[in-house]
Every structure is written in structure tokens, then in C-alpha cells.
């Protein structure tokens, strides 16, 4: 690996010198709404919607301006003020706006703006709607800080900010006990990731004396491979925490107890993809460490399988979507692990995922609103007519995620699978197969979801009066659904996005063994169709029981009754599937949860035990002092002797 050339960013001129306005709008919104108290109750929500939209309009201006520049002058950076000057080293608060961050800014403000509008309808009856918009604005501002930062430490500020906002929003309905628990779990797991990121920053400081992108990327070539590996692993740990990747994925499904717009914006479209952003942003570091990339590949592949398999097991519509998110982010992470061949593909899938998953979440929210906040799919069914618009938008998202040509998922997911295959060697083959099998599972659980919700027979209570949501919700859903259908194709055909991102993540490289893309796509498509068939067979043709069959998971139940009749299939396909699902669900619920809870219990227990040492007796305290004295003197005398 030749040492990277010193990284230079252009100074900000013209409209770019006002980039900070992007952050300022939602920040003002958050400040006014959170500090203004009940005086803002009346007009507060409208202000909350206005600010991300303003940012979006401004972002469009910036985008135009950036397109107007030549390819090599699109990386613009500027310093606002010096934040921490210390020890001959200083952290500047500044921003970097380049094609990568521009892309994210458009996604965050665009999708974010639509979801804000949707929330006006969804949260209309909540008496704390002002607070909700305050938190949402806080989130948008923090997320923009995260993607616009030109320094890892400033990025960390945004990173913590989105974590805080996410936490506040998960627990928004704090009176539900599961909301409080979910918030706690999200917090604990995110802290693990945060420790990773903060250690990475400390490592950068130690190795380069600086933490801004230019210095780190410029210095990484000269630093040893050990530093690069450490950085890649620590950054990956941070990404795992934020993006719900193995082994820190368990918080994301629980986070669905928050309001649905939150699930759509934060836990599907934007925040959880921050991990992918982090890896893509640190492309220079990952390029310097083969082992680091391998770790990323491994995490991505494991996560995409885990997410897809567990997605088959849940009956809660939002949890299925959540595991689907985990799985889809696994695809993105896998793509970034492929190095220069994959960064742009990962981002492309991220964008199309942002559209189709938020479409599906918003549609799910619409379904829930019609069904008195029920999330159990076993209580749905036959909603096609009652919710015709919602059905159509959901269908768009469905077609996009399972990858039916010519919709988004087909282009972006297949591109990742092909790139994995192109990596070559056994590992490339295995990764591609993982991706294809994952696609099959995706098709199965999404078909299952659609069947149980819309296509099967009605199982809802008589009191329910399903109806489509009001227009203020339907319009954003429609716009996003349209995006979900076509954004993937637009981005990937003609390598539009790949060329656009060249300044940020480097030149796109071809893999070693090209395979006819149509062959690959056909194989994938066949597997996907198998999955769809399985879903249709299990959940449209057969009546769906209103309670989950025990003790096996629905996938196994379906498989046992319908899919595989003969013993061979049972032995070869079903048993392992059954086993895998059971084990994974078990580990997800008990294992990782258990680990987190165990850790918390361990610390709590230690705390309880240490606390007992504080007996309240002066004489016990004196024992502590004398004991400490003996230790201190003993240690000093030992060191003297040494």
C-alpha cells in the first residue's frame, strides 16, 4: 500500500460558506420547541416541520452548486471556530461538504422532511406533539452534524446527539413499560459502540496528534498496519453499535416501541445507517487494512443472515421490519467491506433502502392507525380494500425490497451480490451465496408480512374500522413510495452514484472475475421467487391462526405443513432451518439480551456489594484509610527497592 497523498480540501466559497445554515435551522427549531415550553404548543409543530424543509431546500441549492463544479473540486471544507486547543493540537469545529456528505444531507433532510409532514397527522392526537417535534428537530440537527463534520471529534458530537435523540424518542411513550426497557437497552448497547468510537478517536490522537479527516487520512499510510487495523476494528465496533450489527443488533427491534415515524426516520432510514456512513467516510483507513475489511465483511454477512432468518419468526409487523432493517444494513456493511469495489454500492443500497423502508414503516404506521395501534399481524388480514392507498404504497416498498426488476432493490442488492462474487476466491463465492440466500429469506418474510397483513382472510376484531390515513400522511407515503420504486435504478444504471462519489470514496474498481450480470440476477431472482412462493403458499392459501402456534416458530410451522412434504426435505432443509431459527431467536432474546442484562446485573451486583462496604461506621472507614496507607507505602517501598 503506497502512503496516501496528503489530503487537501478546498476552502469554502460562495454558497458553500453558509453550509452551517443546514444545521442551524433544525437546531433553532429544537431550541425553540424544547425551551419554549407550552407557549409554543399552538404553532410549535408547524415550526418543527418547517425547519427540516428549509434545510432541504437549502441542501438542493448546495447540490446544484456542487454539480456545477468539476469533479475534483467538490470537496469543500471550512473551519468555523477552534473548539479545543490543547497541547499544540487543536480541534476545529468545521464542516466538510463533499459528494458523500451531500448525499446524506439530501437523504436526511428530504426523507426527514417528508416524515415530519407525516408526523403532523400521525401524532396529531398526542398531547405532547410539540415535544415530539422538538426531539425530531434535535435528531435532524445532530445527524447533520454527524455527516457534515470534518473531524472525528465533531462527528462524535453528532454521534452522541443522535444517540440522545433516538433514546428520547424510543422512550417517548414512557408510560409503556416496554418503552422504558427498550430505551435502556438501546442506551447500553450504544454505549458499547460509543466506547469503540471514542477509543478510535483516542487512537487517532495518539497516532497522528490530530483527529481531523485530512490529518488522519493523510497520516494513515505512514502509520503502521497495527494502527490501521486497530482503527478499523474500533470504528467497526462503533458502527455495529449504531447500526444494529452483530453482535449488538438486539436493541434495534426493541426500539420499535417508539412512535412509528421515529422508526421510519431514525431506525430505518438515517441514524442506523450512520455506521455505514462511518465506514464509507473512513474508506482511506479501511483501504489500508485488509484484515479490517475482512472483519467488516464477516460482520455484514453474519448480520444479514441473522436478520433475515429472525425476520421470519416474528408476528409483530414493526419487529419484522426492524429485523429486515438489520438484515439490509448487513448488506450495506458487507458492501463496504469489499473496499473500493463496494463503498458506492453500499451507499446506493442505503439510499434505496432509505426510501423503501421508510415507505413501509410509514405504511405500517398507517395500518396501525387504522387498527387501533395493534401491531400483531395475526390480527390483520384482508385490508386491501379498506386501506387501498396504504396497500399500494406498501406494495411498492415490498416490490422494491425483495428486488423484483425493475424496482430499486433489484438494482442495488444485485449489484452488491455481484460485487461480492467478483471479489473472487472461496470467500467471494460464499459471500455471494450468503447474499442470494438472504435475498430468498427476505422475499419469504416480506411476502409473509404482506399476506398476513393484506391478502389473507380477515382476522380483526369487529370493533376495528380500518380506513386509510388522512392526506397529510398519505402524501408523504406516496412520494416515498414513488422514490422506492425508481431510486435504485436511477442511481445504479450508468453508475451515476459511483461516479458521483468518486471524490469521497475513491475510484471504483472492478472485481477479478466478471460474471455475466444477467446470469447472477437470474439466479437471485429465482431464489427470490422461491421465497415469494413459500410465503404465498403458507400465508395466503392457508388460514393464519390468530395465535402463534407453539412451540415452533411460524417459519417452521409453515414449512412443516406446506412447503416440504417428504422426509428428505424435512431432514435436509427443514430441520436445519428450524434449528437455525430457534437458536437464533433464542440467542437474540436470551444470548445478547442475556449478555447485556448480565453485564448490567454484574455491575449492579458489584455496586451493591461495594456499597455494603460503606457501613456508616467511622471505624470501618478508618480501616479503609489505614489499609490504603499500607498499600500506598508498600507499593512505594517496593518501587524504591526495584
Amino acid at each position: 500500500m503506497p502512503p496516501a497523498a496528503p489530503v487537501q480540501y478546498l476552502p469554502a466559497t460562495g454558497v458553500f460558506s453558509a453550509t452551517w445554515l443546514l444545521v442551524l435551522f433544525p437546531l433553532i427549531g429544537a431550541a425553540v420547541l424544547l425551551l419554549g415550553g407550552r407557549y409554543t404548543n399552538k404553532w410549535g409543530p408547524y415550526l418543527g416541520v418547517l425547519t427540516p424543509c428549509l434545510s432541504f431546500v437549502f441542501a438542493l441549492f448546495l447540490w446544484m452548486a456542487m454539480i456545477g463544479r468539476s469533479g475534483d473540486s467538490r470537496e469543500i471544507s471550512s473551519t468555523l471556530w477552534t473548539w479545543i486547543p490543547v497541547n499544540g493540537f487543536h480541534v476545529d469545529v468545521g464542516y466538510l461538504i463533499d459528494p458523500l456528505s451531500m448525499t446524506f444531507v439530501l437523504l436526511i433532510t428530504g426523507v426527514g422532511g417528508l416524515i415530519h409532514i407525516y408526523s403532523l397527522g400521525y401524532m396529531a392526537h398526542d398531547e405532547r406533539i410539540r415535544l415530539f417535534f422538538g426531539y425530531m428537530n434535535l435528531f435532524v440537527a445532530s445527524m447533520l452534524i454527524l455527516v457534515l463534520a470534518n473531524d472525528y471529534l465533531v462527528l462524535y458530537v453528532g454521534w452522541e446527539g443522535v444517540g440522545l435523540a433516538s433514546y428520547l424518542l424510543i422512550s417517548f411513550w414512557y408510560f409503556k413499560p416496554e418503552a422504558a426497557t427498550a430505551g435502556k437497552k438501546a442506551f447500553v448497547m450504544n454505549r458499547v459502540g460509543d466506547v469503540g468510537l471514542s477509543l478510535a478517536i483516542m487512537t487517532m490522537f495518539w497516532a497522528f496528534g490530530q483527529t481531523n479527516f485530512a490529518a488522519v487520512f493523510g497520516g494513515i499510510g505512514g502509520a503502521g498496519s497495527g494502527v490501521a487495523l486497530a482503527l478499523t476494528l474500533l470504528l467497526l465496533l462503533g458502527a455495529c453499535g449504531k447500526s444494529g450489527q452483530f453482535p449488538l443488533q438486539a436493541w434495534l427491534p426493541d426500539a420499535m416501541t417508539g412512535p412509528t415515524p421515529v422508526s421510519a426516520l431514525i431506525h430505518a432510514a438515517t441514524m442506523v445507517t450512520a455506521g455505514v456512513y462511518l465506514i464509507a467516510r473512513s474508506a482511506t483507513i479501511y483501504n489500508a487494512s485488509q484484515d479490517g475489511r475482512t472483519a467488516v465483511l464477516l460482520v455484514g454477512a453474519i448480520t444479514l443472515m441473522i436478520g433475515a432468518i429472525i425476520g421470519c419468526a416474528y408476528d409483530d409487523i414493526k419487529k419484522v421490519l426492524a429485523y429486515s432493517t438489520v438484515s439490509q444494513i448487513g448488506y450495506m456493511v458487507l458492501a463496504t467491506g469489499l473496499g473500493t469495489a463496494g463503498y458506492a454500492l453500499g451507499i446506493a443500497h442505503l439510499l434505496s433502502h432509505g426510501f423503501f423502508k421508510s415507505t413501509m414503516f410509514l405504511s405500517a404506521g398507517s395500518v396501525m392507525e387504522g387498527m387501533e395501534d395493534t401491531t400483531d399481524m395475526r390480527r390483520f388480514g384482508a385490508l386491501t380494500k379498506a386501506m387501498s392507498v396504504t396497500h399500494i404504497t406498501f406494495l411498492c416498498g415490498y416490490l422494491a425490497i425483495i428486488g423484483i426488476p425493475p424496482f430499486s432493490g433489484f438494482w442495488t442488492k444485485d449489484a452488491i451480490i455481484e460485487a461480492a462474487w467478483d471479489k473472487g476466491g472461496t470467500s467471494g463465492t460464499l459471500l455471494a451465496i450468503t447474499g442470494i440466500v438472504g435475498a430468498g429469506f427476505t422475499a419469504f418474510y416480506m411476502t409473509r408480512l404482506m399476506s398476513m397483513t393484506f391478502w389473507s382472510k380477515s382476522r380483526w376484531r369487529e370493533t376495528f374500522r380500518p380506513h386509510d390515513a388522512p392526506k397529510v400522511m398519505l402524501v408523504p407515503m406516496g412520494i416515498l413510495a414513488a422514490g422506492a420504486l425508481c431510486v435504485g435504478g436511477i442511481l445504479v444504471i450508468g453508475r451515476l452514484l459511483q461516479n458521483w462519489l468518486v471524490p469521497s470514496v475513491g475510484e471504483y474498481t472492478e472485481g477479478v472475475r466478471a460474471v455475466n450480470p444477467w446470469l447472477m440476477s437470474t439466479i437471485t431472482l429465482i431464489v427470490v421467487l422461491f421465497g415469494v412462493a413459500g410465503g404465498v403458499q403458507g400465508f395466503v392459501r392457508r388460514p393464519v391462526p390468530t395465535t402463534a402456534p407453539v412451540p415452533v416458530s411460524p417459519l417452521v410451522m409453515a414449512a412443516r405443513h406446506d412447503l416440504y412434504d417428504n422426509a428428505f426435505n424435512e431432514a435436509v432443509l427443514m430441520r436445519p432451518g428450524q434449528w437455525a431459527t430457534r437458536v437464533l431467536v433464542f440467542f437474540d432474546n436470551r444470548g445478547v439480551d442475556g449478555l447485556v442484562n448480565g453485564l448490567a446485573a454484574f455491575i449492579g451486583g458489584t455496586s451493591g456489594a461495594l456499597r455494603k462496604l460503606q457501613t456508616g461506621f467511622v471505624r470501618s472507614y478508618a480501616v479503609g484509610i489505614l489499609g490504603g496507607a499500607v498499600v500506598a507505602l508498600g507499593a512505594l517501598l517496593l518501587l524504591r527497592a526495584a
Partner: protein
Amino acid sequence: MNPANYLLLSGVLFTIGTVGVLLRRNAIVVFMSVELMLNAVNLSLVTFSRLKGTLDGQVIAFFVMVVAAAEVVVGLAIIVTIFRTRRSASVDDANLLKY
């Protein structure tokens, strides 16, 4: 005899003082144990003064006595106050604050 042997005696007295603080329950006796520790320190200071041939040690010991006098006034006042409300001077009885 080595003139520095006083230091050994001082160390022993200091240690006995610390053990007294750990063992006694009557706040006044605990405080007297602390005074014993201060006395031991003074013995060290005077001895070092002689070993070094400078009077600084004696001056410091003098200051220790002055400071100890002030400390005794405050300490006994606190002990008397707490005795008046609790009717007990046992340090073990004062353990409402814990954990």
C-alpha cells in the same frame, strides 16, 4: 545507643495511635488516639532536629502543638454537641449515614 532510636519509638507510638482509632468507640478516646499520633510525630521531629542539627524540626513541632490545640477545641465542641442530642459519645451510634 544510636540517637536515632527515638524514631523507632515514635513509629511504634504512631502505630498504636492508629490502632486506637480503629478499635475505640468512645469518640473522645478516638480523638485522644489521634493526639497520641501527633505526639509521636513531634517526637520524630525533635529527633530529626537533633540528627540534622537544625532547629526547624523543633519549630515545626511547636506549630503542631498550636494547631493541635485549635483542633482540640473544635473537635471537642463537635463531640459535645453530638452528645447533647444523642446522649451518647460512641462513634458506632453515629451511623445513620451509610451505604
